[in-house]
């Protein structure tokens, strides 16, 4: 099996982040993954948290952002996946989405981006959340650099 192709050189102004979409409903996953690709993101897909962990732990793949549903079949739900990422892969940002309202409070404690994105969401809302996350991450890095000087 050959290795995963390296990221092509992005055009100026296009996003450089790689997003992992974790969603068990194939048609929902396809719509949001396709939209993110149209917006210039490199996107991988996983049908549950176990697959997501396998992808994240693959050395050839570098994931920047995980966009995950909360309710999923398998050994972990979206919350457990977010906790695993927080414990094991601190560089990866997580955005959770759910149709269950009471999930919002739990998500707020797990995601740097704030409360979870409620379903049904607009794809543009996902893009805005990703931009917000990456902007915050960039600001955090600049703050860390200025603290060192």
């Amino acid at each position, binding site marked *: *099996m*050959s290795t*995963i*192709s390296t990221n*092509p050189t992005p055009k100026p102004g296009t996003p450089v982040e790689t997003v992992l979409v974790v969603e068990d409903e*194939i*048609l929902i*996953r*396809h719509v949001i993954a*396709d939209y993110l*690709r149209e917006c210039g993101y490199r996107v*991988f*897909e*996983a*049908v549950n948290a176990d*697959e997501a962990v*396998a*992808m994240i732990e*693959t050395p050839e*793949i570098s994931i920047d952002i995980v966009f995950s549903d909360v309710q999923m079949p398998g050994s972990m739900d979206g919350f457990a996946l977010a906790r695993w990422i927080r414990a094991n892969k601190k560089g990866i940002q997580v955005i959770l989405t759910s149709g269950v309202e009471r999930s919002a409070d739990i998500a707020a404690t797990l995601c740097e981006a704030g409360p979870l994105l409620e379903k049904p969401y607009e794809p543009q809302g996902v893009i805005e959340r990703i931009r917000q996350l990456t902007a915050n991450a960039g600001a955090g890095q600049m703050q860390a650099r200025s603290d060192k000087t």
Partner: protein
Amino acid sequence: MNASKVTVFPRREPPVILVVEDDVITRSLVSDELRSGGFKVLEAASTDDAVAVLDTMRVDLLFIAIRLPGAHNGLDLARLVRARAIPAKLILATGMEDEALGLPKDEDLGPFLRKPYQVSQVVELVSHSLNWSEPADK
């Protein structure tokens, strides 16, 4: 100019490929490479997911792993596509020998790709099956 002699070529839409494979790394590798080749790719981890896609949208080619979890394997899915007369090409991937598959000699489901395969082989086979080359302006 005589308008009746003007030939209008339809916009060339990329073919839609449905990759059906339960191993996420293999599925991602194959799908990512196919997208790099200009195809529109959907990913399914099971036959149920694949059928949900087939019920919803047009697919030009299915790349199916024969060994899949659940009640139905990849051969069942390929036979379903043929039984429904869905106008899609099929490519099947397997690590099994012909005898182990137990296929009748007169059953033509499509070309088989033996595992382990190179991802580039998948792209070549798909491109050849669909007579597709990536647009030069892409």
